[in-house]
């Protein structure tokens, strides 16, 4: 069993990278804007279908489709926040929650009606390419997802810290009225933030597709862990989401190895409860948010 620990940790890190990718978008929306986006899992599913159909209809590899899906989902996210969430919620948090829930129900059932519940996958030439790292074989697509998670977290950090948009988003997160008085277009900033969060989901979908399946319910497999990742890492902390995602992946893999796969997820939620008890603000609570 001990000989399996290193391969299990490596496998956990690559699975955790996917959790981190999904959580990066969520931490922007949930952590910075305090919007509990129930539609996050549904948007991930929609992005997976978008990447799937770009592959099936146009023959685009998911990695080639990544910029297209990312831009498409940025626009979708922007439009959703600007003209749906904002319009129907009238600025009340309880309403925002219900509007995102409604969006998720519409997307889920729309996908069921359009694509049926049949499971779909794609066959890419590199699906079974492995990289030998020490005693373990790591699938190439998972290694790519791992690298991309680090890259995206870095890019988002740069965006938030060193651009005017990032400053505006942080300002709106801290003091909406004050930011508005300073001339920041709050509605536009909210929508940009939601758009970037949704774009992350689009990127995550393209990186996930070579190793995972697509069904209208697929979002649920990731979104609960993504919420846990955000809380564990600290709301709004991009670095926190990355570290927490990787940590949860490893915890899940090791618990699965030693306690049995059925109890593997216990580790995730034990870590979650411990964080709430000992560090309620999360492991890497940002100073700004």
């Amino acid at each position, binding site marked *: *069993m001990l*000989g*399996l620990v290193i*391969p*299990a940790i490596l*496998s956990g890190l690559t*699975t955790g990278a*996917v959790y981190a990718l999904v959580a990066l978008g969520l931490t922007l929306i949930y952590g910075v804007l305090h919007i509990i986006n129930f539609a996050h899992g549904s948007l991930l599913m929609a992005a997976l279908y978008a990447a799937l159909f770009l592959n099936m209809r146009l023959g685009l590899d998911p990695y080639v489709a990544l910029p297209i899906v990312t831009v498409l989902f940025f626009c979708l996210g922007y439009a959703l926040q600007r003209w749906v969430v904002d319009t129907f919620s009238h600025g009340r948090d309880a309403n925002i929650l219900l509007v995102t829930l409604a969006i998720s129900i519409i997307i889920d059932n729309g996908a*069921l*009606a359009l694509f*049926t*519940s*049949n*499971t*779909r*996958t*794609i*066959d890419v030439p590199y*699906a*079974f390419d*492995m990289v030998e790292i020490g005693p373990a*074989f790591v*699938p190439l697509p998972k290694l790519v997802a791992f690298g991309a998670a680090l890259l995206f977290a870095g890019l988002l950090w740069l965006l938030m810290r060193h651009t005017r948009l990032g400053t505006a988003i942080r300002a709106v997160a801290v003091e909406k009225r004050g930011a508005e008085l300073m001339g920041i277009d709050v509605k536009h900033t909210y929508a940009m933030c939601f758009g970037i969060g949704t774009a992350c989901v689009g990127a995550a979908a393209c990186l996930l597709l070579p*190793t*995972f*399946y697509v*069904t209208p*319910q697929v979002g*649920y*497999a*990731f979104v609960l862990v993504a919420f846990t990742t955000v809380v564990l890492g600290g709301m709004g902390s991009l670095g926190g989401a990355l570290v927490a995602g990787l940590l949860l992946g490893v915890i899940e*893999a090791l618990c*699965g*190895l030693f306690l*049995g*796969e*059925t109890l*593997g*997820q216990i580790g995730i939620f034990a870590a979650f409860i411990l964080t709430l008890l000992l560090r309620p603000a999360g492991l890497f609570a940002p100073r700004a948010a």
Partner: protein
Amino acid sequence: MAHDDTTSPDATGRNRRDLLKAGGSTLAVAALGTVAAPAVLRAQAPVVKIGGIGPLTGALAYNGNQAKAGVQFAIDDANAAGGIKSMGGAKIELVYGDAESRPDVGAAQVDKLAEAGVSCLVGSQSSAISLATTQAAARFNLAQVIDVGTAEQIVQRGLPNVFRFSPGTAKAVDEGVANLATLNDQAGKPVKTVAIVHEDGPFGSSMAKLLNEKLPALGMTVVETISHPTPQRDFTNIVLRLKAAKPDLVMPSHYINEFILFARTIRQQRFSPKAIYSIFGGGASNIKFVRENPDAAQYVIDTNHWYDPRKPLSQALAKKVADAKLDLTYDIMVAYGATQVAIEAIEKAKSSDRAKVIEALSTQTFSDTVMPYGPIKFVGGDNTGSHLVNLQVRGDKIEVIFPKDVATIAPVFPFPDRS
């Protein structure tokens, strides 16, 4: 002050209540007329209605729509062959109820179908929905020929209107294990150790328990039994444990999504067991999985429902399915066969009367369908002639490898080393 309109006399001296009475009588006469009129029409061009029930929307929509196509093909073929001959060539009409993948909705649809005047029901591709629909149909003395419903509870409640066409779990495990023993014996007993990987719900857990009980009798030692939740996002750990345990045979028992990830991870981790063999596994009986994952799916063996591909009727069905641009799945095959039985029951009952159809289904033996079954006779609601077959993925096709009399190709067992 409020004025009571219903009793105020109108200009002719008649009050509103009289008018309502007169109106009511007129409506009653009209209603009698509409009831009587179709009776006359029916005498001229008799129509027998069969109720289809299944999930056309919701999580099971794919299976439900496939099965609906199978029912429709069977009815079209029967009508083309002259309808119900014992009823003067009565044409068969399909009335379909969408169970929306929910047992409660399925039960409600039965009420509507009964009201629409169906003679019997065919469906509903799921144990949970069938449990609810048969219960509801019993109130109307309405027979249901169940195409696929594996839970044993379906036939254990003593309902007189239940007729399960395809095998349940107990028979599936018995046949699956017996077929495995024969395959292993024929190949010179290469399989001595087995690992079972199962989802931790009722389906996977009960299957794992039964296999753990039955496999030692075949001289096979179960070296690992690994359970996992649904959904399971990553199978690396499980495959690593299998690599360490080095079983000759892997028996997966989970749903199609997990099977896809599992089969892919087996290939990724260069794990090469002598065979992968499942019972109701879904992998080797799902043409979409085979097409989308030709490498991971190669040689996988499943024990499942399938038609007898050598029968001319089956070949004609396969052509119809291809012409309709549908996937040829077992949902279509079993639904087609179950509908054939329902139609023959009406033929033998010489009537669309529900009680007579139930009597025919309970007492008669039914002739050949597209399925590889023996004589079809329902005892205690279960078809004693039903059987499963072994399917193996070969290239981009699903081939029948066992039993020999229906096989389309010789089995590859054990698998070639692909590590």
